[in-house]
């Protein structure tokens, strides 16, 4: 596959990779590079991974292997608003499963899915370490604490600015 580097990746990312390649053990920066790409585009597309592999001179298969190994990386685009329910132990004990059910039925999607209109994505995250305020939900990186299933419609409306 021909890769047009100029259009596939942002200039800023190409510069970041170039800087990494100047250092000792350049290929060890793969995870950081993929993190930058995802930060910019919201997910890792095949083209992104191929371009990274090409510039860093790493087999595409290995880039793909890394991208699929770590939970942090997403291979599909996300909705405009990202809702994540913490599934750490403290949150679980305090009823996060019921909060999750409420989000699922309110949005009509399962974990890892995006609503048809592309507005919301639903995820469960690993422990955020905010156990004292469990159960915890993050919407677009804003942390909401001690969430109850009853608050779910309100949180969704708030996110939509209604």
């Amino acid at each position, binding site marked *: 596959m021909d890769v047009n580097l100029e259009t596939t990746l942002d200039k800023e990312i190409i510069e970041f990779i170039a800087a990494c390649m100047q250092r000792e053990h350049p*290929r060890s920066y793969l995870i950081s590079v993929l993190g930058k790409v995802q930060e910019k585009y919201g997910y890792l597309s095949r083209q992104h991974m191929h371009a990274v592999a090409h510039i860093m001179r790493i087999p595409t298969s290995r880039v793909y292997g*890394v991208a699929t190994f770590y939970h942090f990386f997403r291979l599909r685009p996300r909705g405009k608003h990202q809702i994540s329910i913490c599934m750490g132990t403290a949150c679980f004990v305090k009823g996060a499963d019921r909060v999750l*059910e409420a989000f699922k039925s309110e949005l009509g999607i399962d974990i890892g899915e995006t609503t048809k209109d592309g507005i919301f994505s639903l995820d469960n995250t690993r422990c955020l*370490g905010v*156990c004292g305020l469990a159960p*915890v939900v993050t919407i677009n990186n804003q942390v909401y604490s001690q969430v109850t299933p*009853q608050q779910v419609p309100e949180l969704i409306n708030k996110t939509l600015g209604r």
Partner: protein
Amino acid sequence: MGKILDAFMAVKKRLLDDAANTLSSAPIIIQVGSATCENAAGAQEVRREFEKLLLASGRADIFIKQTGCTGRCSREPIVGVYLPDQFPIKYEKVTVEKVQQIFQQHILGGQPVVPLILDKKTSRMYSWVVTFASLSTVETDSASRWNEKFKEHLKIHGVPEETIRSFIGGCLGLYPAGKEGNKVGMLVFPEKVVYEFGTEEDLARIIQSHFKDRKTLTSMQAEIDPLIKRFITLYGDVAFFNKQTRLTLRNSGIIDPESLKDYVANDGFEALARVLENGQPQAVIQAVILSGLRGRGGAGFPTGSKWQSAVDNPDPVKYVVCNADEGDPGAYMDRSTLEGDPFSIIHGMALGAFAIGASKGYIYVRAEYPLAIRRLEYAIRQCEDAGLLGKNILGSDFSFEIELRLGAGAFVCGEETALMLSITGRRGQPMIRPPYPTERGLWGHPTVINNVETWSNIPVIIRHGAEWFARIGTEKSKGTKVFALAGKIVNSGLVEVPMGTTLREIIYDIGGGVEKGRTLKAVQTGGPSGGCIPADLIDTPVDYDSLAAVGSIMGSGGMIVLDDEDCMVAMAKFFLEFTQDESCGKCVPCREGTLRMLEILERITAGQGMPEDLDKLERLGNLIKKTSLCGLGQSAPNPVLSALRYFRSEFEAHVLEKCCPTRKCSKLIRYEINPEKCIGCTLCARQCPVNCIEGTARKPHLVIQERCIKCGNCFAACKFEAVDRV
């Protein structure tokens, strides 16, 4: 003083010269928390409000300071107020509305707002607060006896008892009883004087002089460790902290985590400067070995021996790594240290690097902790600018740099061989040990990997001495351990106690007991690698060996309190779901075995369990433990096996009677509306997310079972107890 110490003092002086807003020199300080949890609770808004009021007041002698987490998660945001010559006061659950009152009444007016004070234990303003030091259960008894005697003597001397609050506290860094006969340590506030005495005559003399004549009896004064004295001084009289001994968390909630100046002002980097001046790496290793420090990541390997084996390796290139991949759900001790005191980790790693001869270090931190990452990056940059990291540190021959590497959400990367692979940019799949990382580590060179809490202990050991450190804790588990207390507990938060403290002390004396007055069922320690400890073993002391003996592990420090409403089968399934999902897939026992175990548990919680399932779970679990490649698989069955060991009858109820005794497993319960109690208020129907409750106003309602998702909203909403969970 030598050349290097001179250089350090110059750095310190430069940093402190413009340090108008450090605790030591400023007249009035307002401390506002700024960790992830504090921010989630609204600390940033509170801080902005204080800034607004401060600006309006035009006062130049008041300073607002951000700190890390105080560890009182359920009471956040926490605001500390320090007025000269007054008890330090911590306020809980501060909102923007409360800021006005605190500012006007306390900060400008000098009168604490009593109803808002943390835990309200200080609701009466005493003239003195007296703490008796204790270190273990035995010594608590002796400290209590002295406390009683103290009260008797107050009466004899005619000092009104209500002017003094006295209680048994942590070890205060003294060595209460034992060292020199039956001496006991006693700390008196607000004078911050420590007395050490062993006879009633001496006690009488102290009372006469201090509390009657109001003169410090210098002849009986003892030296208290400055670290602990400072902590108590800054935290004031809060029961939650009085039983704790904070070494790792010594600066969390006290210093500004984004200020090297603040860290240096509080003894920071002094240990490194002394060690460099001394120029003997072996002395550092000896101190760590003598201290008895064991790895705080969970396995408890002796840190000093690990370092020694790296030193014994002839390879000239060596690395130190900080494992900050705190993946254990329900544990957040490391996040708190990273966010609240990042410099102590850098300091510890620099000491370790000097000791083993490494010039490069990596901190591997979870991507889920964005604030911790930002603070670490900033801390590293400040240290580089000040010449405390980089080439020829403080003019010595020692060069050391630290690089940050981010994890990307893989629990298995907490395993050291997986972590190293992840640092090199690969999939984090563990490798067979040996060779251990100290033999062949990063890029084939010997590597010392310790976790956040372990590194953070190093500066304390070097600064205060191995012997001092080894006095804290038990014979085989030295020092303190931080626990993240969460779940069904009144005071959820971070707790640091000497090893050997019992679960009872942690849960009841510090944690305030089980939430909502419910009954304790079990305590889960060690997260997905650990196990549950039933309520009748609550007097188990927490140290590596005692926890292992009851079938759990110390783990990294997660401690989840479960009450009588929690289903142990569901808990076991929860942890197995986690480890199953996080299994890297490299070895068969972990990849396939945990999946089969999970299938059985899913069957059991769905009411389709078979009688032979329980034995099968046990057999499979033990097999996976014995045959898995790495620690993840070797410990994955623990939550299930320990639940089976202590709560087998609960499993049997699910399997044989197809019922969940705690009504937690949604497939084994249903919600029904009692027509006799239902008045038809329609509240439940309006709360139902799937509209499965039918009925008209003022008539009894009905749950349509086919559509019910068992969310329990109706159960929680009903004000007439008309919804039954059966």
